[in-house]
């Protein structure tokens, strides 16, 4: 079972990762006994499985994902929400307010076009269209904050092991952060300077997600920037 790269090497689509009895894991495909990468990322050789941790990826929704998106259309009894998926997500009235739809309901008064919502993916239609719900703590319309886009596959890095990264950022900056698995992050801070700092931190994580010791480096970066801010 030859493998053609070292673990965690950077690979691009088309790179032949392995041959033989490996299973083709995430971001790979098998053709004629060989396993090829489909996205740019770090190759991982696990027990009998080869996969790539993608550094760039479009958003592929999964049930249970928390997503942040904008309402783009209103249908009869539902809203269409752009969460960056291959299809616009559907939010039906019962999943938004816990009541079934009635003709006299004024949907734009509940969610209007342009509203940003935090929602959960509760189902995927057969063609992959995500069905959303805004029922639950922390879900629903967002009134304030700043939206930042990241590559969806880097969200686990932003969260860190058992939330270590995001908790550290929350503690150090005092900001509120809502993380959408679709790569949209909602940042809400009391002062503008902290908000700018969090945006810089997110950018740094986006660019360095593939490196090691990231949490410590981000911690150092925040401390350094806060020092600088105080000196000025």
């Amino acid at each position, binding site marked *: 079972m030859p493998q053609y790269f070292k*673990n965690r090497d*950077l690979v691009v689509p*088309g790179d032949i990762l392995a041959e033989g009895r490996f299973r083709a894991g995430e971001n790979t495909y098998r*053709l004629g006994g060989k396993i090829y990468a489909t*996205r*740019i990322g770090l190759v991982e050789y696990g027990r009998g499985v080869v996969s790539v941790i993608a550094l760039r990826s479009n958003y592929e929704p999964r049930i249970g994902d928390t997503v942040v998106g904008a309402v783009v259309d209103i249908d009869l009894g539902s809203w269409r929400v752009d969460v960056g998926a291959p299809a616009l997500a559907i939010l039906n009235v019962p999943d938004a307010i816990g009541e079934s739809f009635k003709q006299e309901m004024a949907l734009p008064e509940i969610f209007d076009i342009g509203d940003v919502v935090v929602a959960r993916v509760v189902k995927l239609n057969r063609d992959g269209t995500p069905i959303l719900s805004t029922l639950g703590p922390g879900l629903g319309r967002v009134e304030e904050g700043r939206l930042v886009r990241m590559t969806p596959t880097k969200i686990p890095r932003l969260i860190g092991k058992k939330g270590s990264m995001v908790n550290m950022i929350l503690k150090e900056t005092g900001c509120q952060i809502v993380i959408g698995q679709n790569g949209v992050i909602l940042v809400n801070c009391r002062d503008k300077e902290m908000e700018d700092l969090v945006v810089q931190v997110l950018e740094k994580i986006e660019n360095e997600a593939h*490196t090691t010791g990231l949490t410590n480096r981000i911690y150092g970066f925040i401390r350094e920037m806060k020092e600088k801010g105080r000196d000025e």
Partner: protein
Amino acid sequence: MSKKKLIVKGVRLDGRKWNELRPIKIEGGVLPNADGSAYLEQGRNRIIVGVFGPRELHPKHLAKPHKAVLRCRYHMAPFSVDPRRSPAPSRRDTELSMVIRNALEPALFLERYPRASIDVFVEILQADGSTRCASITAASVALVDAGIPMRDLVAACSAGKIDSEVVLDLNDIEDKEGEADLPVAYMPKLGKVTLLQMDGMLSPEEFDKALNLALEGCNKIYELQREALKSRYVKQGEGRSAE
């Protein structure tokens, strides 16, 4: 008709040898609003590509129930050539948009995204010959940058015949005054040719030579694509990541 000499003492007008590519610069991730993007310079060609999707296709009746629709638009800016050209799409633009789409499609897993579209928009800011190849090379990098899964990169390069010689990577004057132009796109790891056109005249032997030369060019450009993609993650002395 007296034609200008295009090769003088074994050297082409821009100083290249017969088998030499023009200087190439590729950069991924240049447009913040696009899902993926790339900028490419090849000689005096200046090309920018933006990719969007997979996203819901509008108008809906164009959507396919079993796969995504790949849409490509090749467009030349009015100032990209001399004299100025009309910004309206020409018949040539329509054909090129189509062959670029055909060249990229074999690399994509369109069946994974039913009813969606993947949109590739190519803007030629300055044209200097072999722009369809340069567009494919750049679009391929932009697709990777968009994180859209691909079977392989698509690298493209032209060969042709000027002053009775088979040469690599035609520039504008070589394309216009030369005897044949053979644009080729290739998926190097899969060994598949995805674009192959020719105008002009070649004997079967010359065609073989030109095709092989173009493929050599594709392989070199493929390495440049890889470097461009990787350079964003390997820099500032961070070296390779390792656990």
